[in-house]
Structure formats: structure tokens, C-alpha cells
């Protein structure tokens, strides 16, 4: 398998792949792996507390306010002068993180909804590209259009060029209320879904093409239709092959979602920049945003590594099986 597996621990066991119970055996964690899980648990524990607090109208502390007052953190620096610089930096982070958290919610929504909606579309595109005649041409057109033009241009066309689209979302119930984001986010979701489907589809098509043609033929030979053979024989194998590439697309999308800022979506990077221009502390705020993006990306790739290990089948997709 190729790159895209920075987190080797979850699939280390699946890579062995000979024991029949490779799927059920829990991943053996290295020390670094344990550290990652602890860090992940701390990060997400805190993030969920933060979101819960703000969505429920301030259960623990008022909305947007830090759990620990920044002044207290800064006070540490007064107590231990050597740590004053660190304490000041932390206090700054503690002050801005709650607001960045609400922005990160939008980033998560943009990414998760778009990749999820894009996936079935991508499977259909890939199948059409690999097996279809006219549908293959149509899929090729779709893929080239969305891969071949800038994502930002696509978002502009959707948001400013098709006024009925944001209007449609604005008129839907609940949009813009509570934790349901406003219409611009949903327009961005449409753009990311279509764009991501094109990329995901290409990863999946590559995976479909790497499945031995004898597999489809054997499916046909037992009497399955072509569609049935693809559905029950080719795709279950291809989607497993596609996981590393697909993870790459997921990771890209997390970061590309910041383009939504250009159509007024106040997501993570947008909010960081807004605070930065208020305070002129650009470096600190972008480092802070960077750390949060890193947390999202490592979480996503770890989850996919775990999934890859769970669905691994001896001899399929492992280095020794191919």
C-alpha cells in the first residue's frame, strides 16, 4: 500500500493478515500510539465539553468564555517568573479558544457532511467511469469539470451566481438556528460535495481498476448480473483498496473547507484571521488554528486507519497479498 498511513499503529496488526482472527484482534499500540490516544481523548473531551456548554446556553461557564479564566493562567506567570512567557501565551490561547471552537464546529460540519454526501456520488461516478458507456462519458465530464476548475470559483458560482441556491437553503426550517449552520454553510457543502465526489471518485475508480478482472468474470459466471457482480464482488474489494487514497481526500477536505470563508462562512481559519486582525497577533492565532487543524487531521487519519484494520481481509490489499 502507498502513502497515507502516517498512523501505522492501527493497521500494524492487520498488515500481518494471516491469522483468521486478524479482524477481531485489537490493535497493538506502541508507546507513541498510546500518547496519541491520550492526546485525542483530552482534545475531544474538551471540545465536546466546550460545544455542550455553548449549545446548552452556558452550563458551566457563560457562552464563549473559557473554563479557566485567562487571568488565572496569566497569574501563574506572576507566581513563577521563569514561566511568565509560557503563561502569557497560554492565557492568550485560553482566551481565544472558546470562540475558535464554535468556528471549528463549522469546519467539522463542512467536512463531515460533504465527504459523506460525496461518497455515494463518488461510487456511482467511479462505477460509471469503469463500466459505463454513455454514463462513463457523463461521469468523465463531471470529474473533469470539478477537478479542472478552482474550487473557489465553484463556490463563487454556487453562492453568487445562483441566487436561488442560498435562498432555497435560507427558507428551509431550522437553517441558521441553534447549532444548524446558516445557508452559506449549506451552499459550501453543496460545492464541497460535488468537488470532493470528483476526487473521491477518481480514487475509487483506481481501486476498481486494480481488482482482478477475473473477479467480475467469476461473478458473471455464477449468474450475477453485471450490476450485481460489481455490487457484491468488485466494490467490497475496491472500497478496501481505496481507503488510503480516500483518507488523503478527507484530510485535504478538512483544510480546503477554509475556502468557505470566501462565501461568508465564519469557519476556523476565517475566525482566526478575524481575531488576528483585531489584535495583530497573527502568529499566535494561526499557530492556534494550525494546532486545531492538526488535531482534526490526525483524528481523521487515525479513525480511517482503525477502519482499515477492522475491515482488513487476509491477503486482500495487504502487501503480501498483492
Amino acid at each position, binding site marked *: 500500500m502507498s502513502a497515507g498511513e502516517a498512523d501505522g499503529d492501527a493497521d500494524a496488526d492487520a498488515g500481518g*493478515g*494471516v491469522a*483468521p482472527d486478524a479482524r477481531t484482534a485489537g490493535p497493538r499500540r506502541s508507546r507513541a500510539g498510546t500518547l496519541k490516544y491520550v492526546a485525542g481523548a483530552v482534545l475531544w473531551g474538551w471540545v465536546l465539553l466546550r460545544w455542550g456548554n455553548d449549545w446548552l446556553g452556558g452550563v458551566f461557564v457563560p457562552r464563549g468564555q473559557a473554563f479557566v479564566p485567562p487571568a488565572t493562567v496569566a497569574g501563574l506567570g506572576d507566581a513563577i517568573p521563569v514561566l511568565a512567557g509560557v503563561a502569557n501565551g497560554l492565557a492568550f490561547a485560553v482566551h481565544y479558544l472558546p470562540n475558535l471552537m464554535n468556528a471549528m464546529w463549522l469546519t467539522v460540519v463542512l467536512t463531515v457532511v460533504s465527504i459523506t454526501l460525496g461518497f455515494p456520488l463518488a461510487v456511482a461516478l467511479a462505477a460509471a467511469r469503469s463500466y459505463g458507456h454513455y454514463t462513463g462519458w457523463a461521469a468523465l465530464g463531471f470529474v473533469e469539470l470539478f477537478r479542472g476548475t478552482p474550487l473557489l470559483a465553484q463556490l463563487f458560482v454556487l453562492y453568487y451566481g445562483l441566487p436561488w441556491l442560498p435562498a432555497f437553503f435560507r427558507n428551509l426550517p431550522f437553517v441558521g438556528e441553534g447549532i444548524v449552520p446558516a445557508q452559506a454553510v449549506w451552499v459550501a457543502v453543496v460545492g464541497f460535495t460535488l468537488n470532493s465526489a470528483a476526487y473521491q471518485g477518481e480514487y475509487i475508480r483506481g481501486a476498481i481498476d486494480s481488482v*482482478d478482472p*477475473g*473477479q467480475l*468474470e*467469476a*461473478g*458473471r*459466471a*455464477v*449468474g*450475477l*448480473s453485471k450490476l*450485481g457482480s460489481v455490487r*457484491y*464482488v468488485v466494490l*467490497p*474489494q475496491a472500497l*478496501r483498496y481505496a481507503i488510503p487514497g480516500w483518507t488523503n481526500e478527507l484530510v485535504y477536505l478538512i483544510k480546503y473547507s477554509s475556502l468557505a470563508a470566501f462565501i461568508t462562512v465564519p469557519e476556523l481559519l476565517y475566525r482566526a484571521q478575524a481575531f488576528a486582525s483585531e489584535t495583530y497577533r497573527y502568529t499566535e492565532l494561526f499557530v492556534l488554528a494550525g494546532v486545531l487543524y492538526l488535531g482534526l487531521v490526525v483524528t481523521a487519519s487515525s479513525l480511517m486507519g482503525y477502519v482499515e484494520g477492522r475491515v482488513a*481481509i*487476509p*491477503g*486482500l490489499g495487504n502487501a503480501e*497479498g498483492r
Partner: protein
Amino acid sequence: MSDDPLVRVDDLHKRYGDEEVLKGISFEMDRQDVQVLVGPSGSGKSTLLRCVNRLTEFQGGEITLDGTPVTEMDVDDLRRQVGMVFQDFNLFAHLTAKENIMLGPRRVLGKTEEEAAERALDELDRVGLAAQADSYPAELSGGQKQRVGIARALAMDPKLMLFDEPTSALDPELIGEVVEVMEDLAEGGMTMLVVTHEMGFARAAATDIMFLDQGRIVEHGPPERLFENPEHERTAQFLERLTRLHGETR
């Protein structure tokens, strides 16, 4: 109906582009016949086999199964009735031995999970692999894979079984177990069309042997005649060479 031959191939022509690979093949198979196809590589044996279940389309002539031209049958329905065993097994790589056998009955015949599982275990038992039911293809030896391949085809209750060089991809010491299963099948009355170089199997189980060369039937007859008293020198030479190479593998 049952007095008619099960398979009738009449003046079959098949072209790949400009190249004619089958130049007028005609023969018949009754129920329970075991027809062995031999011939040098490129003679059209595999192509002929694939025309029968229409994995390959042909341009001239006719093939009928149970009196119905295969070209007039629904292709999926045709393949339901004709089992196929491949040279390189083509087991579904993501499914266990048992699941490989269950897929057809489940998704094509519409059987329930339980029915299909029960049948799969029966078929695995028949080919001596009950213990490997939950193994994935990558965990099986070549001979075991091919026996699962045979069991997978049998679970569809085919009228006819096609074997496309079922032992050619196997290590010599694994050929015996597969040939044994095929001989049992033949003895049990399965109608079989077999492309193979296993002359041991041909002698023991074949009703007829057909020698194909360059898309034509050179000679066709019962094994005794082709082995002992062939009409053509070419047949004699070819069979003798095959027997030397593939005759005594067990």
C-alpha cells in the same frame, strides 16, 4: 426433451477481429457425458468453452442447451444453469470459502442465509474442505482454492459444468486432490466439458476426447481409440507428449 442431447454445438465460428479462432466446430454431448478438450495453446479450447456460457460471444453457428439456443436465453439464466471452474480459481477474494459458495445461491437463486449456508457446508464437505469453511482464499493452497471453486459452481445445481484448465495453475503435488474431486463428479453423473492436459483424468473419466488444432476438430472419439489407435499422426504425437508430461501425476 431428455432424448435430445444436452449440448449441441453446430458449425461454431468465432472471430477476434480478423482472426478466426474457431472455424466450424460441431459436436454433441448427452447427459452425464464427460467431454475432454485437448489441443496446443491457441487452438481455441478455452474460447470454445467460453462460448457455451457466453462469456465470449460468437459470430456464426449455434449452441443449444437442452434444446434452446444459448443466444436466445437470458444470459444470467444461462449461467445459472452452467457452472464454470477457472484456471486461476477466481475465488471472491473478500469472502471466506463458505461465503464464496453462498453468494450465488443467496443473490442469484434468492435462497435464505440459512439455506445457502447449509448448502455451502454440504458442498465443502463433498470436496473435503469442511474444516476450511471460514478460511479466506489467501489462506488456502491452490488445490484447496480450486476445490472451493468447484464447490461454488456445484451449489448452483448446474446442468453442465465447464472446466477451463482447472489444474494448470497448480503445483504438481496439488493436482491429484482436484482431479479426484472431478472424477467423483464424473462418476456421480455430472455432465462435464473439460479443457485439461491431465491425461490421467481423460483416460479414467472421459466419455470422449476431442483434439482441437487451429480452431478445427482434428479428431474426436472415445479415449481408448484416441490413445490406442488414432487416425492422425498429429493426434498420436500430441497425446503421447501430454501423457509424458501430465499423465502420471498421482
